[in-house]
């Protein structure tokens, strides 16, 4: 096969490149592209293997029997072009140039005498060939993968609105949660060591709250009305203790304006309001 890139007329008069110091007046045959697009083309090579493959396929060279002189020359031509276009030339390109030249020179040397007749493994081009083919295989695979329709690019995914109910989910609390919270408090503060807690206390406290609640909206409440008529005797006692407890804690004030008159209970808050 003749050197293919010789006779193409040039669009520009200045040398396109310098190859081995010689001005290269013509662009390689396959680069019949406007010079300003050259950079783009050169930049698309994925590396020396890609460039070599391009050259091999473009010039219909035999991968199994690569004409090293021809390939090396063309490769160097492109390297020069890249340098002239100030493309950032990855070190791999220069390394490959060295490899090509090395293979070429080794092929010029007489082959060392064979011992077992295994010639193929001694072909200095074998490793390069293997790499080229493996790379080409992956390059094709990448191309085909890119042709597979991609979600979002080539087809849309269905995503229909789902309206989460707007009702705010409130945490639910169980008695167990309260128990656990209290247990934590116990361990931490050792509250139980200082307070002798009696079971009744809670009902007294509950009743204290009830009384306070009843008093909240009134200035004075008759003492008797704090007791529910249908309440059990223990409940009446608890209520009574609760009122005394409230008085002791100065949360309520108990007043009686005349002896045997009505006993009024009022909260300390209403006392405060009155005083202001």
């Amino acid at each position: 096969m003749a050197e293919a890139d010789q006779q193409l007329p040039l669009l520009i008069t200045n040398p396109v490149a310098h190859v081995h110091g010689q001005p290269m007046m013509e662009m390689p045959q396959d680069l019949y592209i406007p010079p300003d697009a050259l950079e783009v083309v050169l930049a698309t090579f994925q590396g020396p293997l890609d460039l070599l493959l391009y050259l091999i396929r473009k010039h219909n060279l035999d991968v199994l029997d690569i004409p090293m002189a021809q390939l090396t020359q063309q490769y160097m031509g492109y390297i020069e072009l890249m340098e002239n276009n100030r493309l950032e030339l990855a070190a791999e390109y220069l390394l490959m140039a060295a490899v090509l030249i090395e293979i070429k020179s080794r092929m010029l040397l007489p082959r060392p005498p064979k011992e077992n007749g295994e010639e193929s493994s001694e072909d200095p081009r074998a490793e390069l060939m293997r790499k080229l083919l493996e790379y080409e295989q992956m390059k094709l695979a990448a191309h085909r993968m890119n042709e597979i329709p991609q979600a979002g690019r080539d087809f849309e995914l269905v995503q229909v609105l789902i309206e989460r109910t707007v009702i705010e989910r409130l945490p639910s609390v169980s008695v167990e949660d309260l128990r656990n919270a209290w247990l934590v408090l116990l361990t931490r503060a050792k509250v139980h060591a200082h307070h002798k807690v009696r079971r009744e206390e809670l009902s007294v406290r509950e009743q204290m709250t009830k009384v306070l609640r009843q008093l909240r909206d009134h200035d004075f409440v008759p003492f008797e009305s704090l007791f529910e008529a249908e309440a059990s005797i223990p409940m009446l006692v608890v209520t009574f203790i609760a009122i005394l407890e409230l008085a002791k804690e100065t949360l309520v004030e108990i007043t009686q304006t005349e002896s045997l008159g009505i006993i009024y209970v009022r909260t300390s808050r209403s006392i405060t309001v009155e005083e202001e």
Partner: protein
Amino acid sequence: MTDQAESQVLATTDTVSTDIVELDHPVDTVLLKRVYEAALMSSQEPLSITELKRLSDAPLETAFIETLLSELAEKYADSGIELNRVASGWRFRARPELQDHLDKLNPQKPPRYSRAVMETLAIIAYRQPVTRGDIEEIRGVNVSSQVLKTLEGRSWIEVIGTRDTPGKPELFATTQQLLDDLNLRTLGELPALEEMGSLLDQSGNAEA
């Protein structure tokens, strides 16, 4: 022939709309409906009639597009989703009545209250009426207003008065709502404190 068979498969309403349109523009109604379907299904936002008009090269009348959309909505009458018209256009959504089923897929874990909230609630429940200062004394840390607001927001606690001490601190107590939510009749049904102490390993020597 094939075309006819195909459109016959589709609903009879289809024929009506096709007739209307065939007069104005030779629009492939079947294709158009599919395009609308695909567009509406894959769009995150409702699509307006203006946007839907962009989907066909031939200029279409709003009324015609709306007819197609109604037919599309009709097609989904018996399915798990529905086509709705909302302020900004048309959109598909999962049927709200299926919500309960769909929730099973992503069981939202019920949110939990922070320890601060739970401890504060426990203190108010067991020690009521208490002031914020009381709570802080027992917990050993400041009680943030947020904690109290959370509990008040649930109507689980309320202010039932003030203590007659400097600053007139508010007294907090638990509400009937809390008892209802805990499924209790009285506070007395809360776990007894002294029993709880025995649940703790450390309490063994503390009681002595």
